């Protein structure tokens, strides 16, 4: 263990001299060390405590600021804010329905596309692929998470959207137009494009958590099922996926949380039109993108307040979603790793 080689720096000079001078009187040593350093210890401990408190303080401040700044809109529209579908800054009439719809639909599309792929990759990496490939594939998938949102958006505008417009959307329209999901003019940019880019962005999250959970499944479970004559697929289905399903669910919910709050790439690809349309070809608008687009232009107080209220809804929803996901994932992995460390 190389860790042990890290130089353990002895307290230089001072205390050794102190020890040498008073070798016979042990209590004196304690007194010498305790006077100054106990004081420092207390300061040290409390400053670290302050750092921890800052995390909770930030969270509390966020809630406080967003609630107090959206009071105006909450008082004016009440619950109707969530059901109203007009968004008219000039008339001062604000309803967030189209944005909520857009956020939900784009996240749903993203989940439908991302979940099978992410779980597939995780299963491939942990159960099937040769050891030498393992590191490379998980590193590459994690690289996907390091790409900034704005670059996904850039790529989406200039590569993905034209691709959708020319090839994918006409094909979908021809073969699945009857479902009503793939009709209307094909711009390339729209709900489908936003959903696809979101899927690419949340795959790393779901995949890495799924991988963690799959690794936590005890090897003996796999061996037991294989010993009964199961094929690889039967082993994965019976021993691995069944044991890991709660954790995978947690990963999916975490991915959902990310999709709901994702801003830049979606703003660049969804078309930014506050409408409720069934077709995935149609442009839409999400809660995060309306804030990004209009916040710095909002001049009057009510307009600003309505935008902050959307932010508050986003905050509450993502806090709930993340809390659920964390509890699920913790119930599987954290207890395990904490026990290892103890």
């Amino acid at each position, binding site marked *: 263990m190389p*860790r042990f*080689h*890290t*130089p*353990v720096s*002895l307290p230089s000079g001072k205390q050794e001299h102190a020890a040498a001078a008073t070798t016979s009187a042990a209590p004196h040593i304690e007194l010498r060390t305790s006077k100054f*350093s106990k004081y*420092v210890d207390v300061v*040290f*401990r409390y400053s*670290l405590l*302050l*750092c*921890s*408190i*800052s*995390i909770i303080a930030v969270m509390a401040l*966020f809630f406080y*600021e*967003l609630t107090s700044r959206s009071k105006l809109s909450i008082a004016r529209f009440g619950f109707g804010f969530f059901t109203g579908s007009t968004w008219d800054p000039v008339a001062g009439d604000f309803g967030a329905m189209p944005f909520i719809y857009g956020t939900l639909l784009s996240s749903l599309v993203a989940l439908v596309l991302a979940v099978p792929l992410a*779980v*597939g*990759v995780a299963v*491939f990496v942990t159960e*099937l692929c040769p050891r030498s490939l393992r590191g490379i594939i998980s590193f*590459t*998938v994690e*690289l*996907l998470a390091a790409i*900034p*949102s*704005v*670059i996904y*958006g*850039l*790529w989406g*505008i*200039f590569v993905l959207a034209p691709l959708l417009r020319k090839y994918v959307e006409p094909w979908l329209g021809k073969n699945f137009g009857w479902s009503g999901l793939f009709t209307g003019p094909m711009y390339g940019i729209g709900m489908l494009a936003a959903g696809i880019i979101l899927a*690419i962005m949340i*795959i790393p999250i779901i995949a890495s958590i799924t991988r963690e959970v799959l690794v936590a499944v005890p090897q003996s479970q796999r061996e037991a099922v294989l010993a009964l004559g199961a*094929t*690889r*697929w039967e082993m*994965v289905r019976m021993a691995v996926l069944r044991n890991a399903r709660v954790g995978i669910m947690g990963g999916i919910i975490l991915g959902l949380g*990310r999709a*709901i*709050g994702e*801003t*830049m790439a979606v703003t*660049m690809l969804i078309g930014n039109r506050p409408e409720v349309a069934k077709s995935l070809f149609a442009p839409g608008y999400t809660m995060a993108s309306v*804030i*990004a687009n209009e*916040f710095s232009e909002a001049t009057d107080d009510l307009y600003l307040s309505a*935008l902050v209220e959307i*932010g508050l809804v986003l*905050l509450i929803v993502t806090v709930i*979603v*993340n*809390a659920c996901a*964390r509890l699920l994932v913790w119930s599987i992995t954290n207890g395990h790793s904490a026990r290892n460390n103890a």
Partner: protein
Amino acid sequence: MPSVSRPVSLVRRLTNFGFIGLSILAALLVLAPLGAIFGYLVYKGIGSINLAFLTNTPRPVGEDGGGMANAIVGSVMILGMGSILGVPLGIGAGVYMAEFGHGRFVNLVRFTADVLNGIPSIVVGIAVYALVVLPQHHFSALSGGVALGIMMIPTIARTTEEMLLMVPNTIREAALGLGIPQWRATLQVTLRTASKGVITGAMLAFARVAGETAPLLFTAFGNQFWSLKPDQPIAALPIQIFAYAISPFDEWHRQAWAGALILIVLIVVAVAAVRVVTSRGSMANNA
């Protein structure tokens, strides 16, 4: 073993092959966008990066040339300010959770950190706007730094904690047994032992916020001109890329690609540099 010769039924074998095929397909489909994005980024960006792009400020529409020098410097400034705020707070919180961490309070901090980590960056932007920009009465580089710093705290705190928990207790006991006060034992022995992982965690947090655009939209705001003042709006690479990408001008699109390539390179270089430095440190220790 007589039963070995009994063949696995065709349906089961086919299902198995189908499953393996689908997993491989999933892996390929996930890796494809990564290749496509990086490939396209290099292909589009490399031709537009030249000395002028790196040294000039943006030109008005219609004029050729111009660059993103102010945005690059601005990004570095905001990130520097963010790190000054986020790294010490994050590491401090992480050390507290790992070293003094028992009981409900620490669990609450841990949980809050994880939840804070998942809050949309645009919400951080609004909150910092209300907290810093409104009292100041104008957009500023400082507020951008605060937004990014806040986003770094939970990530750094959690990785620091995890890394410290991996340090064997015997090392702590050995240090304390030598009569070193707790604070020195924690800083100079425990934290130092875990320093590689802690630095890597800080770097990952840095890389994550380096590309953030949403929290900067109404804090740093962006700026077409040179500015190094912390209390004035400042340009940042991600904002500039965003503004250029959604503009209708080809020249600006070209520059957006170049800016995106620079941003990615900055992120990768920052992460790789830390990898190299920390791994060299450990090699020296092993030798």
